[in-house]
């Protein structure tokens, strides 16, 4: 059985249905991407998985446990970390405080210190400026911190929403390389991306979401080769 399984998810903001039938599965140890154009419902889907939104109907099952009725802070304790769209750092707090907030639910001080050091090893620029306010960093550095913060809860499932947004191609590559390293170290990753080309190249499995529904799925390679995907998303991504 899949580690995370989302079935027939419907989510609405008031009368407007943003997600109207999304289903997908994430296997343990994989990178799975949700791709699709702006407004397709990818971010809404992630926000529902992490408990910020309640679905109208459908199911979200994590490791055999239905989680779609739990509050967000309990879903985090079950091992789901969510790095939200736009990074949403605590801008007036230091790098170190942002990381400590990522570890808010953990009681093992020694382990927390070790993991802070691990984030600094992963992104040395954060370690050099650990006392600086997060709001003063560049977009790429902020993204590193956002990923680092999400890692601090030692999640089993790491969800990243548009980690490449606003980043240079070099920085995007660096972030995606890191995502791959995390997967190789055993973290399961659910990635939402508009940058379909890079996301598919990285993914073990991917789903296309269009107008609030999952329309296609396959391995990253299969979707890259799929003419429907090429026409709808890759041309757009290449020219963007």
């Amino acid at each position, binding site marked *: 059985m899949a580690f995370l399984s989302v079935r027939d998810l419907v989510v609405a903001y008031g009368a407007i249905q943003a997600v109207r039938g999304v289903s997908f599965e994430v296997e343990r140890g994989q990178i799975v991407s949700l791709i699709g154009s702006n407004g397709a419902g990818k971010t809404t889907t992630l926000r529902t998985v992490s408990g910020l939104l309640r679905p109208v109907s459908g199911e979200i099952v994590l490791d055999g446990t239905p989680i779609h009725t739990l509050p967000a802070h309990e879903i985090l304790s079950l091992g789901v970390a969510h790095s939200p769209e*736009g990074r949403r750092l*605590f801008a007036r707090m230091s790098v170190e405080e942002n990381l400590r*907030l*990522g570890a*808010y639910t953990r009681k093992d001080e020694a382990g927390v210190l070790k993991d802070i050091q691990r984030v600094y090893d992963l992104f040395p620029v954060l370690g050099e400026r650990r006392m600086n306010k997060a709001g003063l960093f560049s*977009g790429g550095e902020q993204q590193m911190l956002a990923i680092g913060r999400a890692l601090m809860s030692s999640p089993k499932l790491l969800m990243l929403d548009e980690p490449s947004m606003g980043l240079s191609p070099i920085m995007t590559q660096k972030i995606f390389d890191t995502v791959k390293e995390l997967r190789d170290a055993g973290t399961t990753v659910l990635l939402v991306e508009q940058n379909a080309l890079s996301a598919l190249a990285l993914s073990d499995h991917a789903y296309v979401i269009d107008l609030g529904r999952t329309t296609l799925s396959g391995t990253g390679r299969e979707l890259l080769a799929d003419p429907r995907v090429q026409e709808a998303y890759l041309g757009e991504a290449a020219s963007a």
Partner: protein
Amino acid sequence: MLSTFLSQIANGLVLGSLIALIALGYTMVYGIITLINFAHGEIFMVGAYGGLASMTYLLPTVITQRWYFALPIVLVVGALVSILVAVAMERFAYRPLRNAPRLAPLITALGVSVALQEAVRVFYPGATAAIPFPDLFIQGTLIIPIGDGVPIRYTGILLIVLSLVLAFGLERFVERTRMGRAMRATSQDRDVARLMGINPDRVIVLTFAIGGALAGIAGVLYGSYLNNINIDMGFQNGIFAFTAAVLGGIGNIRGAVIGGLVIGLVKALGGQYLPGGTAYDYVWIFVVLIIVLVFRPQGFFGETERVRA
């Protein structure tokens, strides 16, 4: 001349520390849920009545006659009564309106304020008029030997010292502890705080409780210093405290303290030296508020809103 000036400074500092204690509750609640809790002045008022009730009806004379027993007990009782009222207010009046338009909780706050005043008036024996309140600290006045001597009551000194210690302790708590960090996180971005595993309901209850404790302590000290209390005390001092919080930069702890002290000093010195005397001290307070807000709309320590990417 000098000693008149210095005694007004002393008066201003006493009043200012009292206002600062109340202002901390306004500023903390605003910081977390962006609500101006207009009923916060009444939390201060019920603390004073709660403390007085314990003196009058509960504690044996062997305790009430010794200030070193009575003072800490009455302060704790006042704080507990205020915490209870503040937490109940959050739970039953504000939490159901968490996602309502912002005007709804604001109007509710005004309603809660009136309800609490009336409840005390109806149910507290003799509360239709002002009630005498005993001085709970060492009786008497210290004369600071400057000029002709500057008098300040021991209770006034206690008020200044205790307020500053509590405000300093609160700032340390918010800056240094895990729970304090959770409060700041909730204040900056509630959804992301939830993604960190923080339960915002707990943070909000804690914020109301802390604000309530400080207001209750302020209520008992107020009674102890002025030696009588009435059901309007929350309204008057609540307005001063709210103004102090805005002056200092709402949401900011240090700002609330500085704002409180500035208002205390303006009230005391304005009443002494400016035309109109004490009848006009409110006017000078709001003149200062308006002048400061014209040049620094975010208050002394407030941060300008930054647009997030």
